[in-house]
């Protein structure tokens, strides 16, 4: 009995010395280690993703507090379904898909009011249909207020983008996702991702141009 216990301790110690520390472990291996009983591995996943998910959901929804609730919900769903995660897939795409769906639901719930819903649909449709354009706006350097608050203004320009363009834009420009990952996260085909991203960039450029030299 005592020998078994000693052997267990030795095995655990050996595992601890041969295994890389959690910080160096790839996401999918963290999932495996968690499923093998190493509870701290889930904590490492939370640590790794809480900031970037909060950024993504906050930029998508524009509501800081609500974004935090949605990120919590994302982790809870991941926790519940981790045993069903296919470790041949990319963990980050999976967790972003969950967060993206929650953000979409949040925006959908906000537009329950028929008038808001109509305006949202109209805005989205127009954003998809209007021809791509570019007017060479001139910079207004005398506008000190604008200059001082450039970053906030650029930030609010993202909020002005239609919802379906905004998510694609954030995922590409702020989160560095590939087209394929964005297609999977947003459940769109590659062509749609490309077209939305191009339109989002065009829209963004139109909004921020007057602020930039």
């Amino acid at each position, binding site marked *: 009995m005592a020998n078994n216990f000693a052997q267990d301790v030795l095995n655990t110690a050996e595992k601890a010395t041969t295994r890389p520390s959690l910080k160096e472990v790839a996401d999918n291996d963290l999932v495996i280690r968690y499923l093998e009983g190493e509870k701290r591995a889930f904590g490492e996943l939370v640590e790794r993703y809480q900031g970037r998910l909060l950024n993504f959901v906050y930029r998508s929804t524009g509501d800081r507090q609500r974004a935090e609730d949605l990120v919590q919900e994302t982790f809870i769903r991941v926790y519940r379904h981790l045993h069903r995660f296919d470790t041949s897939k990319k963990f980050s795409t999976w967790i972003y898909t969950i967060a993206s769906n929650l953000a979409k639901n949040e925006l959908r719930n906000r537009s329950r009011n028929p008038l808001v819903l109509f305006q949202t649909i109209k805005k989205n449709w127009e954003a998809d249909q209007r021809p791509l354009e570019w007017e060479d706006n001139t910079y207004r350097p005398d506008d000190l207020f604008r200059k001082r608050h*450039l970053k906030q203004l650029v930030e609010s320009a993202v909020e002005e983008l239609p919802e379906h363009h905004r998510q694609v834009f954030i995922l590409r420009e702020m989160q560095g996702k590939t087209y394929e990952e964005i297609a999977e996260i947003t459940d769109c085909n590659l062509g749609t991702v490309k077209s939305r991203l191009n339109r989002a960039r065009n829209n963004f450029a139109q909004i921020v141009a007057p602020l930039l030299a």
Partner: protein
Amino acid sequence: MIDCSRFLMEYSDFRDELVDSELRAKFLDHIESCASCARYDRVVGRGVSLLRELPDPSPSDDFGARLQHRIFHVDDEMRRVRTFPRSGFAVAATAVILLLVSLSPLIRENTPLAELPAVVANAPSQTVETPALLRSGPFLSPTPASTLAPAGSSLLGQAPPSSPWLTYGAAGSPRGILTAID
């Protein structure tokens, strides 16, 4: 040479370096020669770099504690889910056994009794006073034990059919399940 309209149409491919070197050179040529498209490229690039400089919103101080608390409840719930199918099965199995036991008289009544061989008593041919100890008693022909049990009673002893035990946490599910979580 490409024109302004094509530049705008395919700008994302250029920015994300998804065009071949030949087309890329054409884009660069256009930027060289067209001030308007050159500015477009600058505005997108500068706007995005400003965005990337924005500080990431950091989770509030109690984020971890709140998550931990919720996970505690999820664990609790998952434990109950894991144990429920077993206890549920035990309750169901007991109920089936009790039902069968309660129905067993009915089963017996409906079951035709096995026909037993007739009991034959050998009567003495003449009345002779014999000592009681030597008197041969009525001879009962032996009845095979198997015929005594009512037909069908073996059902009670039968093993229950193997049940599709609900496993929790089967790994390697198809991805369709994963995407369905929304």
